[in-house]
Protein backbone atom coordinates (compact mmCIF):
# COMPACT_ATOMS: atom_id res chain seq x y z
CA UNK A 1 0.00 0.00 0.00
CA UNK A 2 1.33 3.41 -0.95
CA UNK A 3 1.52 6.01 1.89
CA UNK A 4 -1.04 8.69 1.32
CA UNK A 5 0.83 11.78 2.69
CA UNK A 6 3.60 12.15 0.13
CA UNK A 7 2.97 14.47 -2.80
CA UNK A 8 5.05 15.71 -5.80
CA UNK A 9 6.34 12.80 -7.84
CA UNK A 10 4.08 10.56 -5.87
CA UNK A 11 1.12 12.81 -6.30
CA UNK A 12 -0.14 10.75 -9.16
CA UNK A 13 0.43 7.56 -7.21
CA UNK A 14 -1.45 9.03 -4.24
CA UNK A 15 -4.31 9.94 -6.44
CA UNK A 16 -4.17 6.46 -7.94
CA UNK A 17 -4.30 4.86 -4.50
CA UNK A 18 -7.14 7.04 -3.40
CA UNK A 19 -8.91 6.23 -6.62
CA UNK A 20 -8.32 2.53 -6.02
CA UNK A 21 -9.57 2.71 -2.44
CA UNK A 22 -12.62 4.64 -3.53
CA UNK A 23 -13.21 2.11 -6.27
CA UNK A 24 -12.93 -0.78 -3.83
CA UNK A 25 -15.50 0.83 -1.53
CA UNK A 26 -17.74 1.67 -4.44
CA UNK A 27 -17.57 -1.87 -5.79
CA UNK A 28 -18.23 -3.44 -2.40
CA UNK A 29 -21.10 -1.00 -1.98
CA UNK A 30 -22.43 -2.05 -5.34
CA UNK A 31 -22.09 -5.73 -4.42
CA UNK A 32 -24.01 -5.05 -1.20
CA UNK A 33 -26.68 -3.18 -3.10
CA UNK A 34 -26.78 -6.00 -5.67
CA UNK A 35 -27.41 -8.57 -2.89
CA UNK A 36 -30.16 -6.38 -1.41
CA UNK A 37 -31.78 -5.91 -4.80
CA UNK A 38 -31.57 -9.67 -5.41
CA UNK A 39 -33.50 -10.38 -2.20
CA UNK A 40 -36.09 -7.76 -3.14
CA UNK A 41 -36.48 -9.44 -6.51
CA UNK A 42 -36.72 -12.91 -4.94
CA UNK A 43 -39.36 -11.89 -2.41
CA UNK A 44 -41.27 -10.00 -5.11
CA UNK A 45 -41.40 -13.22 -7.13
CA UNK A 46 -42.57 -15.12 -4.05
CA UNK A 47 -45.29 -12.53 -3.45
CA UNK A 48 -46.35 -12.73 -7.08
CA UNK A 49 -46.45 -16.53 -6.92
CA UNK A 50 -48.53 -16.50 -3.73
CA UNK A 51 -51.03 -14.05 -5.19
CA UNK A 52 -51.32 -16.08 -8.39
CA UNK A 53 -51.84 -19.26 -6.36
CA UNK A 54 -54.56 -17.52 -4.38
CA UNK A 55 -56.29 -16.37 -7.57
CA UNK A 56 -56.15 -19.90 -9.03
CA UNK A 57 -57.55 -21.34 -5.79
CA UNK A 58 -60.42 -18.84 -5.74
CA UNK A 59 -61.14 -19.75 -9.36
CA UNK A 60 -61.42 -23.41 -8.34
CA UNK A 61 -63.81 -22.52 -5.48
CA UNK A 62 -65.94 -20.59 -8.01
CA UNK A 63 -65.92 -23.63 -10.32
CA UNK A 64 -67.10 -25.84 -7.45
CA UNK A 65 -70.03 -23.51 -6.84
CA UNK A 66 -70.83 -23.23 -10.54
CA UNK A 67 -70.72 -27.03 -10.92
CA UNK A 68 -73.37 -27.43 -8.24
CA UNK A 69 -75.61 -24.83 -9.90
CA UNK A 70 -75.19 -26.43 -13.33
CA UNK A 71 -75.80 -29.88 -11.91
CA UNK A 72 -79.05 -28.82 -10.23
CA UNK A 73 -80.36 -27.22 -13.41
CA UNK A 74 -79.42 -30.09 -15.69
CA UNK A 75 -81.06 -32.63 -13.40
CA UNK A 76 -84.28 -30.62 -13.56
CA UNK A 77 -83.93 -30.31 -17.32
CA UNK A 78 -83.40 -34.07 -17.68
CA UNK A 79 -86.52 -34.81 -15.62
CA UNK A 80 -88.47 -32.27 -17.69
CA UNK A 81 -87.22 -33.83 -20.94
CA UNK A 82 -88.59 -37.19 -19.81
CA UNK A 83 -92.04 -35.66 -19.48
CA UNK A 84 -92.04 -35.33 -15.70
CA UNK A 85 -94.08 -32.51 -14.24
CA UNK A 86 -91.29 -30.38 -12.87
CA UNK A 87 -91.12 -26.58 -12.81
CA UNK A 88 -88.44 -25.73 -15.35
CA UNK A 89 -87.40 -22.12 -14.92
CA UNK A 90 -84.64 -21.29 -17.41
CA UNK A 91 -83.72 -18.22 -15.37
CA UNK A 92 -83.96 -19.72 -11.92
CA UNK A 93 -81.36 -18.29 -9.53
CA UNK A 94 -79.05 -20.74 -7.82
CA UNK A 95 -78.43 -21.01 -4.10
CA UNK A 96 -75.36 -23.05 -3.31
CA UNK A 97 -75.79 -25.56 -0.53
CA UNK A 98 -72.62 -27.66 -0.79
CA UNK A 99 -70.16 -24.76 -0.73
CA UNK A 100 -72.34 -21.92 0.51
CA UNK A 101 -71.49 -18.25 0.04
CA UNK A 102 -70.73 -17.94 3.76
CA UNK A 103 -68.31 -20.89 3.60
CA UNK A 104 -66.79 -19.41 0.45
CA UNK A 105 -66.05 -16.18 2.30
CA UNK A 106 -64.31 -18.05 5.10
CA UNK A 107 -62.11 -19.88 2.60
CA UNK A 108 -61.37 -16.52 1.00
CA UNK A 109 -60.15 -15.21 4.36
CA UNK A 110 -57.91 -18.24 4.76
CA UNK A 111 -56.31 -17.39 1.43
CA UNK A 112 -56.05 -13.72 2.39
CA UNK A 113 -54.04 -14.78 5.45
CA UNK A 114 -51.37 -16.16 3.10
CA UNK A 115 -51.38 -13.32 0.57
CA UNK A 116 -51.18 -10.64 3.28
CA UNK A 117 -48.25 -12.53 4.81
CA UNK A 118 -46.46 -12.52 1.43
CA UNK A 119 -47.17 -8.79 1.12
CA UNK A 120 -45.71 -8.20 4.59
CA UNK A 121 -42.54 -10.05 3.53
CA UNK A 122 -42.29 -7.88 0.46
CA UNK A 123 -42.55 -4.64 2.44
CA UNK A 124 -39.77 -5.96 4.72
CA UNK A 125 -37.59 -6.72 1.69
CA UNK A 126 -38.19 -3.32 0.13
CA UNK A 127 -36.08 -1.76 2.86
CA UNK A 128 -37.89 1.53 2.56
CA UNK A 129 -39.03 3.57 5.50
CA UNK A 130 -42.63 2.78 4.79
CA UNK A 131 -43.02 -0.80 5.96
CA UNK A 132 -46.41 -0.37 7.52
CA UNK A 133 -49.56 -2.02 6.22
CA UNK A 134 -52.22 0.07 4.57
CA UNK A 135 -55.27 0.83 6.69
CA UNK A 136 -57.40 -1.56 4.60
CA UNK A 137 -54.91 -4.38 4.96
CA UNK A 138 -54.64 -3.79 8.69
CA UNK A 139 -58.44 -3.94 9.04
CA UNK A 140 -58.62 -7.14 7.03
CA UNK A 141 -55.84 -8.82 9.02
CA UNK A 142 -57.47 -7.79 12.31
CA UNK A 143 -60.81 -9.08 11.08
CA UNK A 144 -59.26 -12.41 10.13
CA UNK A 145 -57.45 -12.66 13.45
CA UNK A 146 -60.66 -11.99 15.40
CA UNK A 147 -62.44 -14.72 13.42
CA UNK A 148 -59.66 -17.17 14.23
CA UNK A 149 -59.74 -16.26 17.92
CA UNK A 150 -63.43 -17.22 17.87
CA UNK A 151 -62.55 -20.55 16.18
CA UNK A 152 -64.27 -19.30 13.05
CA UNK A 153 -62.20 -21.48 10.71
CA UNK A 154 -63.41 -25.09 10.60
CA UNK A 155 -61.05 -27.82 9.48
CA UNK A 156 -62.12 -30.72 7.28
CA UNK A 157 -60.96 -33.04 10.08
CA UNK A 158 -62.62 -31.58 13.21
CA UNK A 159 -59.65 -32.40 15.45
CA UNK A 160 -57.51 -30.03 13.35
CA UNK A 161 -59.78 -27.02 13.86
CA UNK A 162 -58.03 -25.68 16.97
CA UNK A 163 -54.59 -25.95 15.33
CA UNK A 164 -55.88 -24.24 12.18
CA UNK A 165 -57.22 -21.25 14.12
CA UNK A 166 -54.02 -21.06 16.19
CA UNK A 167 -52.01 -21.02 12.95
CA UNK A 168 -54.09 -18.17 11.53
CA UNK A 169 -53.66 -16.17 14.75
CA UNK A 170 -49.87 -16.69 14.59
CA UNK A 171 -49.58 -15.65 10.93
CA UNK A 172 -51.75 -12.57 11.41
CA UNK A 173 -49.66 -11.63 14.47
CA UNK A 174 -46.57 -11.71 12.28
CA UNK A 175 -48.28 -9.61 9.61
CA UNK A 176 -49.32 -6.98 12.16
CA UNK A 177 -45.86 -6.92 13.77
CA UNK A 178 -43.69 -7.65 10.75
CA UNK A 179 -41.54 -4.52 11.22
CA UNK A 180 -39.73 -6.12 14.16
CA UNK A 181 -38.15 -8.71 11.88
CA UNK A 182 -34.74 -7.63 10.56
CA UNK A 183 -34.24 -10.39 8.02
CA UNK A 184 -36.55 -12.11 5.58
CA UNK A 185 -35.40 -15.58 6.63
CA UNK A 186 -36.24 -14.80 10.24
CA UNK A 187 -39.84 -13.86 9.34
CA UNK A 188 -40.27 -16.77 6.92
CA UNK A 189 -38.91 -19.22 9.45
CA UNK A 190 -41.21 -17.89 12.17
CA UNK A 191 -44.40 -18.95 10.31
CA UNK A 192 -43.27 -21.99 8.35
CA UNK A 193 -45.18 -24.52 10.54
CA UNK A 194 -48.30 -22.35 10.64
CA UNK A 195 -48.22 -21.75 6.89
CA UNK A 196 -47.94 -25.52 6.41
CA UNK A 197 -51.05 -26.01 8.58
CA UNK A 198 -53.13 -23.48 6.63
CA UNK A 199 -52.04 -24.91 3.27
CA UNK A 200 -52.82 -28.46 4.48
CA UNK A 201 -56.38 -27.33 5.19
CA UNK A 202 -56.79 -25.79 1.73
CA UNK A 203 -55.51 -29.02 0.18
CA UNK A 204 -57.94 -31.11 2.25
CA UNK A 205 -60.84 -28.92 1.08
CA UNK A 206 -59.74 -29.39 -2.53
CA UNK A 207 -59.65 -33.17 -2.10
CA UNK A 208 -63.17 -33.12 -0.67
CA UNK A 209 -64.45 -30.85 -3.43
CA UNK A 210 -63.02 -33.19 -6.06
CA UNK A 211 -65.43 -35.97 -5.06
CA UNK A 212 -68.39 -33.69 -5.67
CA UNK A 213 -66.95 -32.40 -8.95
CA UNK A 214 -66.34 -35.91 -10.28
CA UNK A 215 -69.88 -37.06 -9.54
CA UNK A 216 -71.43 -33.95 -11.12
CA UNK A 217 -69.46 -34.43 -14.30
CA UNK A 218 -70.47 -38.09 -14.47
CA UNK A 219 -74.11 -37.25 -13.85
CA UNK A 220 -74.15 -34.83 -16.75
CA UNK A 221 -72.29 -37.34 -18.94
CA UNK A 222 -74.94 -39.96 -18.18
CA UNK A 223 -77.74 -37.57 -19.12
CA UNK A 224 -75.97 -36.64 -22.34
CA UNK A 225 -75.47 -40.30 -23.20
CA UNK A 226 -79.16 -41.02 -22.65
CA UNK A 227 -80.18 -38.08 -24.82
CA UNK A 228 -77.74 -39.14 -27.53
CA UNK A 229 -79.20 -42.65 -27.64
CA UNK A 230 -82.63 -41.18 -28.20
CA UNK A 231 -81.28 -38.76 -30.81
CA UNK A 232 -79.57 -41.61 -32.64
CA UNK A 233 -82.83 -43.53 -32.84
CA UNK A 234 -84.64 -40.61 -34.42
CA UNK A 235 -81.93 -38.76 -36.33
CA UNK A 236 -79.50 -41.58 -37.14
CA UNK A 237 -76.18 -40.29 -38.49
CA UNK A 238 -77.36 -36.70 -38.02
CA UNK A 239 -77.08 -37.29 -34.30
CA UNK A 240 -73.30 -37.19 -34.72
CA UNK A 241 -73.35 -33.42 -34.32
CA UNK A 242 -75.19 -33.73 -31.01
CA UNK A 243 -72.60 -36.19 -29.83
CA UNK A 244 -69.84 -33.71 -30.63
CA UNK A 245 -71.72 -30.92 -28.88
CA UNK A 246 -72.26 -33.06 -25.79
CA UNK A 247 -68.58 -33.93 -25.67
CA UNK A 248 -67.52 -30.28 -25.94
CA UNK A 249 -70.06 -29.16 -23.33
CA UNK A 250 -68.89 -31.79 -20.89
CA UNK A 251 -65.30 -30.55 -21.06
CA UNK A 252 -66.19 -26.91 -20.62
CA UNK A 253 -69.03 -26.96 -18.10
CA UNK A 254 -67.54 -29.21 -15.46
CA UNK A 255 -63.91 -28.81 -14.34
CA UNK A 256 -61.73 -31.85 -14.31
CA UNK A 257 -60.61 -33.32 -10.97
CA UNK A 258 -57.12 -32.73 -12.41
CA UNK A 259 -57.61 -29.04 -11.65
CA UNK A 260 -57.73 -29.76 -7.92
CA UNK A 261 -54.68 -32.06 -8.13
CA UNK A 262 -52.65 -29.35 -9.84
CA UNK A 263 -53.86 -26.73 -7.37
CA UNK A 264 -52.60 -28.89 -4.52
CA UNK A 265 -49.21 -29.18 -6.21
CA UNK A 266 -49.09 -25.39 -6.43
CA UNK A 267 -49.92 -25.15 -2.72
CA UNK A 268 -47.13 -27.61 -1.89
CA UNK A 269 -44.77 -25.46 -3.94
CA UNK A 270 -45.85 -22.40 -1.94
CA UNK A 271 -44.86 -24.08 1.33
CA UNK A 272 -41.53 -25.19 -0.15
CA UNK A 273 -40.85 -21.68 -1.45
CA UNK A 274 -41.38 -20.18 1.99
CA UNK A 275 -39.10 -22.83 3.47
CA UNK A 276 -36.39 -21.79 1.00
CA UNK A 277 -36.81 -18.14 2.06
CA UNK A 278 -36.44 -19.27 5.67
CA UNK A 279 -32.96 -20.53 4.80
CA UNK A 280 -31.87 -17.91 2.26
CA UNK A 281 -29.09 -15.51 3.29
CA UNK A 282 -29.13 -13.67 0.00
CA UNK A 283 -31.63 -13.47 -2.81
CA UNK A 284 -31.03 -14.67 -6.32
CA UNK A 285 -32.35 -17.61 -8.28
CA UNK A 286 -34.05 -19.93 -5.80
CA UNK A 287 -35.40 -23.08 -7.52
CA UNK A 288 -38.34 -23.46 -5.11
CA UNK A 289 -39.66 -20.04 -6.04
CA UNK A 290 -39.32 -20.79 -9.75
CA UNK A 291 -41.18 -24.04 -9.10
CA UNK A 292 -43.98 -22.15 -7.30
CA UNK A 293 -44.49 -19.90 -10.32
CA UNK A 294 -44.35 -22.85 -12.69
CA UNK A 295 -46.89 -24.91 -10.72
CA UNK A 296 -49.24 -21.96 -10.41
CA UNK A 297 -49.03 -21.29 -14.15
CA UNK A 298 -50.11 -24.88 -14.75
CA UNK A 299 -52.99 -24.52 -12.30
CA UNK A 300 -54.13 -21.34 -14.02
CA UNK A 301 -53.85 -22.94 -17.47
CA UNK A 302 -56.01 -25.87 -16.37
CA UNK A 303 -58.55 -23.57 -14.75
CA UNK A 304 -58.79 -21.47 -17.93
CA UNK A 305 -59.24 -24.53 -20.11
CA UNK A 306 -62.37 -25.36 -18.11
CA UNK A 307 -64.01 -21.99 -18.81
Amino acid sequence: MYPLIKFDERGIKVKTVLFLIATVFLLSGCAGMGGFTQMQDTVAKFDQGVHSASTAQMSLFHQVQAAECNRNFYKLAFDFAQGEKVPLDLMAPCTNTELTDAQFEIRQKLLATITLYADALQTLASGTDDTNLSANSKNLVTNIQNLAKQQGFTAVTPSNTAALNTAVVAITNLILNHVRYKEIREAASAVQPELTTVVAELKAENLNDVKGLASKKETFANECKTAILSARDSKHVASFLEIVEAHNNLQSIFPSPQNADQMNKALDALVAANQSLAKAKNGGAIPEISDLISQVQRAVALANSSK
Partner: protein
Amino acid sequence: MPTLDQQTNLTNAIDAIRAAEKVLKQQIDAANDPATSTNLTNEFNKIDSLLSQLLQAQNLADDASFTNATAALQSHANTLKTDEAKIKRIVGDVKIAAEVISYITQALAFIAKL
Protein backbone atom coordinates in the same frame (compact mmCIF):
# COMPACT_ATOMS: atom_id res chain seq x y z
CA MET B 1 -69.59 -28.99 13.75
CA PRO B 2 -69.45 -32.78 13.26
CA THR B 3 -67.38 -34.82 15.70
CA LEU B 4 -64.45 -36.86 14.42
CA ASP B 5 -66.59 -40.03 14.40
CA GLN B 6 -69.38 -38.27 12.51
CA GLN B 7 -66.90 -36.87 10.02
CA THR B 8 -65.44 -40.34 9.49
CA ASN B 9 -68.90 -41.82 8.90
CA LEU B 10 -69.69 -39.01 6.46
CA THR B 11 -66.49 -39.62 4.53
CA ASN B 12 -67.10 -43.37 4.43
CA ALA B 13 -70.69 -42.86 3.26
CA ILE B 14 -69.46 -40.53 0.50
CA ASP B 15 -66.87 -43.08 -0.64
CA ALA B 16 -69.47 -45.87 -0.68
CA ILE B 17 -71.91 -43.78 -2.72
CA ARG B 18 -69.13 -42.88 -5.17
CA ALA B 19 -68.31 -46.57 -5.53
CA ALA B 20 -71.97 -47.36 -6.32
CA GLU B 21 -72.03 -44.49 -8.83
CA LYS B 22 -68.93 -45.75 -10.61
CA VAL B 23 -70.46 -49.19 -11.14
CA LEU B 24 -73.72 -47.68 -12.38
CA LYS B 25 -71.83 -45.36 -14.71
CA GLN B 26 -70.14 -48.32 -16.32
CA GLN B 27 -73.58 -49.78 -17.00
CA ILE B 28 -74.79 -46.50 -18.47
CA ASP B 29 -71.72 -46.29 -20.71
CA ALA B 30 -72.46 -49.80 -21.96
CA ALA B 31 -76.19 -49.20 -22.47
CA ASN B 32 -77.35 -49.23 -26.07
CA ASP B 33 -80.98 -48.20 -25.84
CA PRO B 34 -82.62 -45.05 -24.48
CA ALA B 35 -84.97 -46.84 -22.07
CA THR B 36 -82.20 -48.74 -20.24
CA SER B 37 -79.97 -45.67 -20.16
CA THR B 38 -82.83 -43.52 -18.84
CA ASN B 39 -83.66 -45.96 -16.04
CA LEU B 40 -80.04 -46.32 -15.01
CA THR B 41 -79.45 -42.56 -15.17
CA ASN B 42 -82.49 -41.87 -13.02
CA GLU B 43 -81.20 -44.34 -10.43
CA PHE B 44 -77.75 -42.74 -10.59
CA ASN B 45 -79.34 -39.33 -10.05
CA LYS B 46 -81.28 -40.58 -7.04
CA ILE B 47 -78.08 -41.84 -5.43
CA ASP B 48 -76.26 -38.66 -6.43
CA SER B 49 -78.78 -36.45 -4.65
CA LEU B 50 -77.90 -38.35 -1.47
CA LEU B 51 -74.23 -37.63 -2.21
CA SER B 52 -75.04 -33.94 -2.53
CA GLN B 53 -76.65 -33.95 0.91
CA LEU B 54 -73.61 -35.72 2.37
CA LEU B 55 -71.30 -33.08 0.88
CA GLN B 56 -73.46 -30.32 2.34
CA ALA B 57 -73.33 -31.91 5.79
CA GLN B 58 -69.55 -32.28 5.54
CA ASN B 59 -69.08 -28.51 5.22
CA LEU B 60 -71.39 -27.50 8.06
CA ALA B 61 -69.78 -25.76 11.01
CA ASP B 62 -72.54 -25.26 13.59
CA ASP B 63 -74.12 -28.05 15.59
CA ALA B 64 -77.78 -27.11 15.00
CA SER B 65 -77.39 -27.10 11.21
CA PHE B 66 -75.51 -30.37 11.34
CA THR B 67 -78.24 -32.03 13.45
CA ASN B 68 -80.89 -30.91 10.94
CA ALA B 69 -78.78 -32.12 8.04
CA THR B 70 -78.28 -35.50 9.69
CA ALA B 71 -82.01 -35.95 10.20
CA ALA B 72 -82.68 -35.08 6.55
CA LEU B 73 -79.97 -37.49 5.43
CA GLN B 74 -81.37 -40.37 7.41
CA SER B 75 -84.86 -39.68 6.10
CA HIS B 76 -83.59 -39.57 2.51
CA ALA B 77 -81.50 -42.67 3.02
CA ASN B 78 -84.59 -44.62 4.04
CA THR B 79 -86.19 -44.00 0.64
CA LEU B 80 -83.24 -45.74 -1.02
CA LYS B 81 -83.82 -48.93 0.95
CA THR B 82 -86.88 -49.68 -1.17
CA ASP B 83 -84.87 -49.36 -4.39
CA GLU B 84 -83.19 -52.75 -4.10
CA ALA B 85 -85.75 -54.59 -6.26
CA LYS B 86 -85.72 -51.79 -8.83
CA ILE B 87 -81.92 -51.85 -9.10
CA LYS B 88 -81.99 -55.62 -9.68
CA ARG B 89 -84.55 -55.12 -12.43
CA ILE B 90 -82.83 -52.28 -14.31
CA VAL B 91 -79.22 -53.40 -13.96
CA GLY B 92 -79.93 -56.81 -15.38
CA ASP B 93 -76.69 -58.51 -14.42
CA VAL B 94 -77.25 -60.12 -11.02
CA LYS B 95 -73.66 -59.79 -9.88
CA ILE B 96 -73.38 -56.13 -10.81
CA ALA B 97 -76.75 -55.33 -9.25
CA ALA B 98 -75.58 -57.00 -6.04
CA GLU B 99 -72.40 -54.90 -6.10
CA VAL B 100 -74.37 -51.66 -6.41
CA ILE B 101 -76.76 -52.70 -3.65
CA SER B 102 -73.84 -53.66 -1.42
CA TYR B 103 -72.27 -50.19 -1.74
CA ILE B 104 -75.60 -48.47 -1.11
CA THR B 105 -76.19 -50.65 1.95
CA GLN B 106 -72.75 -49.71 3.28
CA ALA B 107 -73.50 -46.02 2.77
CA LEU B 108 -76.84 -46.33 4.58
CA ALA B 109 -75.12 -48.06 7.50
CA PHE B 110 -72.65 -45.18 7.87
CA ILE B 111 -75.47 -42.64 7.63
CA ALA B 112 -77.41 -44.47 10.34
CA LYS B 113 -74.44 -43.97 12.71
CA LEU B 114 -74.44 -40.17 12.34
